[in-house]
C-alpha cells in the first residue's frame, strides 16, 4: 500500500461507525519447536498513535512484532493493514506495506557509512550509486524528523543512541508509516531516552504510528496512548491512557503479586574483603578505567550502575584478574592480587559471574557436569564423578530444568543456564571464595528467573560473601545494593548508600551530567 492512501486513511479512520485500524492482528498463533510463542493474539493499532506492547521476556511480544513486520509467518491467524488482510512474506514485503521494525540488536553494517546503511536494501535504489546524492537524501530525511546525523560518519564509531537513530532514519527513508521499536530504551541513558521520546512524538505528529515493544513498566506509561499487555503468548489486557495505573499493568503482566521491594543486608557489614585503591587501566593511550577506589565488605552488595560501555567489563575483568591494571592496587582479603592471573586470583578467594553467560561463563556445547569443573582445580585426570553428584544436587536444589546432568548448557533456557553458572561460582567454590563479582546476572531472563537469581544473591550476601554487582539494569542495582556507584567513562562519578539513593541524581550521573 502506498503512503498516500494510508495518509488518506488517517483522516477518515472511522468509516461507517467501525474503527479502521492502521494495523491489526487477528488470532495470530506462532509456534517454535517446543514453544507456543503466540496463542491466538489480537492486536490493533490506530493511525498516529503510540501503542506499547508490554510483557516480560518470553511473553511473546517480540514474536508478535516479528509477525507484524513480516519477519515470521504466523502459523494461524491474519494480519490486517487498514482493514484489509495482507500476507507478508518477508520484512521487505512488510516495508512495501509501510511497516518497519527496529530490532533490539541493531542490524547495521559497522563498516558502512550512515548513508550506506540507510539506503541499503531500499527497493527503488538505482543500479549506480552516487555517494553525494545519497548522503543529501539521507540528511534531508533525518532533518525532517529532528534526528541529527552525519551521513558520512562510519556506523562502527557511533554510540548506541546514534545507531538507533540510523535505524529509525532507515525505516523512514524506506517509507515506513508504522514503526515497530523492539526494546528501544534497553541501551540508552535516561537523557537519550527522552530524546527518543521526542522523536517518537515528531513521528506521530506526522501521522506515523509507533509500536513500542518493552518490558519496562515505568517508562511506557508516559509515552503510550494505549498499552497492550502480553503474558505466556496471550494478550492479558489492553488499556488506553489514563485507564490503568502501574500497579494494574504489573498485575496484567506478571499475573501475580511480585515483590519489588528492595532487598538490603540485614546484618551489619563486617571486615573488608575486596579493596581497590586508585585502580586504572590505560590501553592504546585511552583510559578505560581511571582512579577507581572502593571497598566491599563481607555481607554486603556494592552495586555499580552505568550505561553499557562505560568500563563495566574492564572493571570486572581487572578484579577477576583477567586484565592487569596499569595503576593502583587491588587486594582480596588483605593480600595484593595485582596481575597474578585469574587462576591465582581465584585461589585468593574470588568467584566471577561474567555478563555473557553462554559464551564466557559457560562452554555452551559442554555438559552441565563438565561446566561445573571449569573454574575448579583439576588434576591430571578430570574427576567427573564428584562433579556429577554435585550437578545432580544443584539441579534438585535450584530446580534447574534439564533432561539430565549431561545436557549441553546451550540447550538450557537462559534462566537455567544462569542458575548453573551461579551455582558453580557461589557454592561450587566452597567457603574459600568469599568475594563474588557478578555482571548483569538477570539480563534477558524472565521474571521468575530474575526472582530466583536475586534470591540466590541475597542468600549469598547473608552467608557473608562480599558481592560486587555490576549491572546495566538500574532497577536491579537499586533493588539489591547496599551501596550504589555510577560508572561513567571509566570513573566513579556518583556514590550513595542504597537506602539514601536519589534516583534522579543517579540517572544524571549515568548520562555524565553530574
Amino acid at each position, binding site marked *: 500500500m502506498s503512503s498516500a492512501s494510508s495518509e488518506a486513511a488517517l483522516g477518515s479512520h472511522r468509516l461507517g461507525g467501525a474503527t479502521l485500524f492502521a494495523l491489526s492482528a487477528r488470532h495470530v498463533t506462532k509456534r*517454535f519447536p517446543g*514453544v507456543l*510463542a503466540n496463542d491466538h493474539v489480537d492486536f490493533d493499532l490506530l493511525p498516529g498513535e503510540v501503542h506499547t506492547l508490554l510483557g516480560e521476556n518470553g511473553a511473546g511480544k517480540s514474536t508478535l512484532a516479528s509477525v507484524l513486520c*513480516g*519477519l*515470521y509467518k504466523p502459523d494461524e491467524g491474519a494480519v490486517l493493514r487498514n482493514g484489509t488482510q495482507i500476507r507478508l512474506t*518477508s*520484512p*521487505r*514485503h*512488510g*516495508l512495501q506495506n509501510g511497516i518497519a*521494525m527496529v*530490532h533490539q540488536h541493531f*542490524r*547495521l*553494517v*559497522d*563498516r*558502512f557509512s550512515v548513508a*550506506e*546503511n540507510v*539506503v*541499503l*536494501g531500499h527497493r527503488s*535504489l*538505482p*543500479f*549506480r*550509486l552516487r555517494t553525494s546524492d545519497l548522503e543529501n537524501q539521507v540528511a534531508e530525511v533525518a532533518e525532517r524528523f529532528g534526528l541529527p546525523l552525519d551521513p558520512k560518519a562510519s556506523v562502527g564509531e557511533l554510540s548506541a543512541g546514534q545507531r538507533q537513530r540510523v535505524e529509525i532514519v532507515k525505516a523512514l527513508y524506506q517509507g515506513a508509516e508504522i514503526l515497530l521499536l523492539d526494546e528501544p530504551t534497553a541501551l540508552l541513558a535516561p537523557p537519550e531516552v527522552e530524546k527518543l521520546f521526542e522523536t517518537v512524538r515528531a513521528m506521530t505528529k506526522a501521522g506515523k504510528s509507533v509500536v513500542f515493544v518493552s518490558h519496562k513498566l515505568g517508562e511506557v506509561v508516559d509515552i503510550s496512548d494505549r498499552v497492550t499487555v502480553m503474558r505466556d503468548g496471550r494478550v492479558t489486557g489492553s488499556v488506553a491512557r489514563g485507564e490503568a495505573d502501574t500497579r494494574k499493568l504489573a498485575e496484567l503482566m506478571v499475573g501475580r503479586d511480585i515483590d519489588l521491594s528492595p532487598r538490603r543486608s540485614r546484618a551489619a557489614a563486617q571486615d573488608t574483603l575486596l579493596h581497590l585503591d586508585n585502580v586504572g587501566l590505560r590501553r592504546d593511550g585511552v583510559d578505560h578505567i581511571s582512579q577507581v577506589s572502593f571497598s566491599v565488605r563481607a555481607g554486603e552488595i556494592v552495586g555499580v550502575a552505568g550505561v553499557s560501555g562505560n568500563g563495566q567489563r574492564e572493571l570486572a575483568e581487572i578484579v577477576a584478574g583477567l586484565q592487569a591494571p596499569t595503576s593502583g592496587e587491588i587486594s582480596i582479603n588483605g593480600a595484593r592480587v595485582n596481575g597474578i592471573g585469574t587462576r591465582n586470583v581465584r585461589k585468593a578467594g574470588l568467584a566471577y559471574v561474567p555478563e555473557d553467560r553462554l559464551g564466557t561463563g559457560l562452554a555452551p556445547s559442554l555438559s552441565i557436569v563438565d561446566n561445573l569443573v571449569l573454574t575448579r582445580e583439576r588434576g591430571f585426570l578430570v574427576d567427573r564423578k564428584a562433579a556429577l553428584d554435585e550437578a545432580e544436587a544443584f539441579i534438585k536444589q535450584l530446580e534447574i530444568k534439564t533432561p539430565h546432568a549431561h545436557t549441553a548448557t546451550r540447550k538450557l533456557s537462559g534462566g537455567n543456564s544462569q542458575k548453573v553458572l551461579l551455582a558453580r561460582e557461589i557454592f561450587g567454590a566452597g567457603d574459600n571464595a568469599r568475594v563474588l563479582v557478578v555482571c548483569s546476572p538477570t539480563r534477558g531472563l524472565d521474571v521468575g528467573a530474575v526472582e530466583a537469581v536475586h534470591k540466590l544473591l541475597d542468600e549469598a550476601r547473608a552467608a557473608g560473601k562480599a558481592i560486587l554487582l555490576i549491572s546495566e539494569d538500574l532497577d536491579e542495582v537499586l533493588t539489591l545494593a547496599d551501596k550504589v556507584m555510577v560508572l561513567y567513562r571509566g570513573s566513579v562519578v556518583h556514590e550513595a548508600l542504597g537506602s539514601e539513593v536519589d534516583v534522579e541524581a543517579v540517572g544524571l550521573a549515568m548520562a555524565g551530567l553530574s
Partner: protein
Amino acid sequence: MNANVWVLTFADAFSIATTLILATIGAILTERSGVINLGVEGILLMGAVTAFLVGDATGNVWLALLLPVAVGAVMALIHATLSITLRANQIVAGLALVIFGNGLSQFIGKPVEGKTRPVVIKALDLGPLTDLPIVGPIIFGHDPITYLTWVGAVVCSLCLNRTRPGLVLRATGDAPATVDAQGVSVARVRFVHTIIGGARMGLAGGWFMLARGTAWSQAATTNGIGWIALALVVFAAWRPLRAIAGAVLFGFTLQVPFTLQGQQINILPPEIVQMLPYLATLFVLVILSTPRARKLLGAPKMLGQPFVRDER
C-alpha cells in the same frame, strides 16, 4: 644474462597473473558474500583438464575455454549447497572439493596424459604496440582473455563499490542479518557469488592449461596456484584492484625459477628454487598477520559462518 630475459620474465609474470587474477577475484567475490571456498585448487585442476579434453575433442579454443567455466560453476554449486543450504563446515567442504577435483581430473585426464596441448590461445597482434621495446612484450603481447581479465577486475571493483548489488554483497559478508532484514535473501546472494566465483576459477584453470601449460599431467599442472590465490585474497585485502598488483608480484615469483633454470643459472639447485614462490607467499602471510596489518585488511566479518534466521 641480458636485459631481454628479464623483459620476458616480466611478460610471463603478467601472463601468469591472469590465472591468479581470475582465481583470486573469484575467491574475493565468494568471500565477500561470507562463504569461504578452499576448493580453488580442485576447481583449477578440473578447469584445466576440461579445457584440455574439450580442445582435444573439438579443436575449438573457445569451446575449450567455455566449458571450464561451466565446470567451475558446477563445482562451486556443490560447495554452495553444502555450506549454505546444508550448513556443513566450509573448511572441510572446500578440502573435499580439492580432493574430489584432484582425483576426478586425474581420472578423466588419464587417456590424454602426456599428450601435448591440442589448442593454443594466441596472443593478439597489436601491430606497432607489440613491437615497442620493453613495454611491447610486457604489456601488449598477450591474448584476449588476459586483457578481458584486467578489464574485468576494474569492472568488478566498480561494481563492488559503486553499485547497489555491490553494496548488498559487501553487506552480506559483514552483516547477513541486516541484509536479511531488508528482505534480500542471504542464501541467494551467497549462492550467486559462490557460483560466479567458481566460474572464474574454472576459467582460470582452463586458460592456464591452454595458454601456459604444455602437456597434460595432473601433478605438474597447477602446482598449488589455487592455494597461492587464496593467500592473495588476504594480500589484496578483499579488494579486486589490489588483486591485480598482488597477482603480478606473485606471478613474478612463480616465473623466476623457470627463468633461472632456462638461463642455466645454478646459484641454487632447481628443487630449492621451486620452493621460493611458496616460501615467499608464506613470508607475505607472516607480514600480514601483524595486528596492525590485520586491522587494515579487514576480512568480511561473517566469513565462513552459516546464516540462520530463526534462532529461537
